[in-house]
């Protein structure tokens, strides 16, 4: 599998798994007050400031079959997790947590409290309110979360290199392939791949901006 498709596959799985998680955590942070909420928020946003190598180090050490946890996980899955595609998915989910949670949290917080109360007095359960009232109003936030997660996963480097190494067809994503091509003095291939990532990143941000503007206009 070429680095291009591998990166798309990684971004696809990460987005698919992370967006629902981001919705749940985002909604929790937007509506609920509980003890230690600041701590939960700090943990969720930690990947924004934490160097990817720090996260990579912890993942590498904890998932390696050289320790008890990693060994148990390896025997459960039948294959060690480090230096494999699933390890990249796991790492990407953690790294992208803030990118999925933040837009969702903002979108939920922007729904007026009286709209939700109106739904409740109309006899809708919390679950029905979520599905029929909240979700339709924050779909632009969800789009933002998905786009940011997808684009950010494509560009991930440090944690991918540490947890996945550089294995063709398995963990050699687009950004790792660029690094690899530069070391081989193959500047042409590196140039094509970087241009592709640049264009994609700009497109992703434009989508996020437009979605953001529309969500303000709707209100």
């Amino acid at each position: 599998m070429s680095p291009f498709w591998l990166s798309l596959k990684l971004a696809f799985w990460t987005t698919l798994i992370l967006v629902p998680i981001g919705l749940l955590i985002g909604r929790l942070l937007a509506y609920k007050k509980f003890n230690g909420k600041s701590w939960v928020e700090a943990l969720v946003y930690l990947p924004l400031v934490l160097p990817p190598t720090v996260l990579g180090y912890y993942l590498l050490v904890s998932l390696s079959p050289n320790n008890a946890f990693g060994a148990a996980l390896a025997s459960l899955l039948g294959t060690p997790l480090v230096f494999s595609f699933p390890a990249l998915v796991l790492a990407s989910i953690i790294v992208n947590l803030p990118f999925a949670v933040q837009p969702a949290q903002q979108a939920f917080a922007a729904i007026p409290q009286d709209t939700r109360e109106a739904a409740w007095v109309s006899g809708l359960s919390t679950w029905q309110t979520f599905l029929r009232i909240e979700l339709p109003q924050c779909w632009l936030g969800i789009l933002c979360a998905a786009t940011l997660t997808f684009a950010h996963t494509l560009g991930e480097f440090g944690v991918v290199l540490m947890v996945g190494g550089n294995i063709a067809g398995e963990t050699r994503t687009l950004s790792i392939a660029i690094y690899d091509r530069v070391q081989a003095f193959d500047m042409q291939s590196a140039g094509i791949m970087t241009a592709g990532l640049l264009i994609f990143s700009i497109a992703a941000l434009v989508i996020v901006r437009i979605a953001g503007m529309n969500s303000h206009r709707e209100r």
Partner: protein
Amino acid sequence: MKSVLLAFFLSILVVNQSRANDAPLVAAASSLRQVWPLLMAAYAPEKNPRITFGSSGNLSRQILQSAPFELFLSADQSYSEQLYIQGKSIDEPTPYTIGVLAWVALPQTPLAHWLNRSTDPVSPTDDINTKPSFPFTDIKNLAIANPAFAPYGRAAMQALQANGVNKQSSIKFNMGENAAQTLQFALSGATGGGIVPLSLVTGLATQQLPKIIVSKIAPTMHAPLIHSMVLIDTPSSSATSLFNFLLSEQAQQIFEQHGFSAIN
């Protein structure tokens, strides 16, 4: 939550299928980067091996941490020996070629001037009075591979010490993660040049590079870089036949023609 777990395990299934691929997974020292396509052209396997280049130390660490490689081509003996000792390999390391160090510099740099004035600048037999001494004051920094995990970096450090350069010298070292990155650093123009594998700056390899001054370093200046390899765990037949090919006369000739020297 259930769907999340399901999706995750599905992705693992998808990956396991892709692993059932009979192209062997090879981890190789980055000194082999330029010679590898030539070796593969001669070998012409049904499926090209999937190769990962890096520093020998880094790759052997990854293998110890269960990276799924089947064949490890080290740039020295210690890292493949370690895999054997730790039980990752059934057989002891097999030498397949010997590495050669080279100075590399962009033209018109102080290092290039020094290299041009002394044909073999670091030979120990040279009369110290006839050769210009290493231009300490003119060279601010040098690119070498990181000696902590790259055999060529370790050898470069030994060659430098033999030349009077040591850690106390005012030269700053720009340390590459592996030999290939070191070359990239050395030719970036930001460093005064560097010490790299001859195999990366010789013959066909130079076509992609800017115009450079290359000067071979005498093998007596450092501990020999005996490249040795090990098959990992239970290798596939394609990995084993690749192992045998690298020892064949044909492969050995290619190594010798591209910046390596013969075993024995």
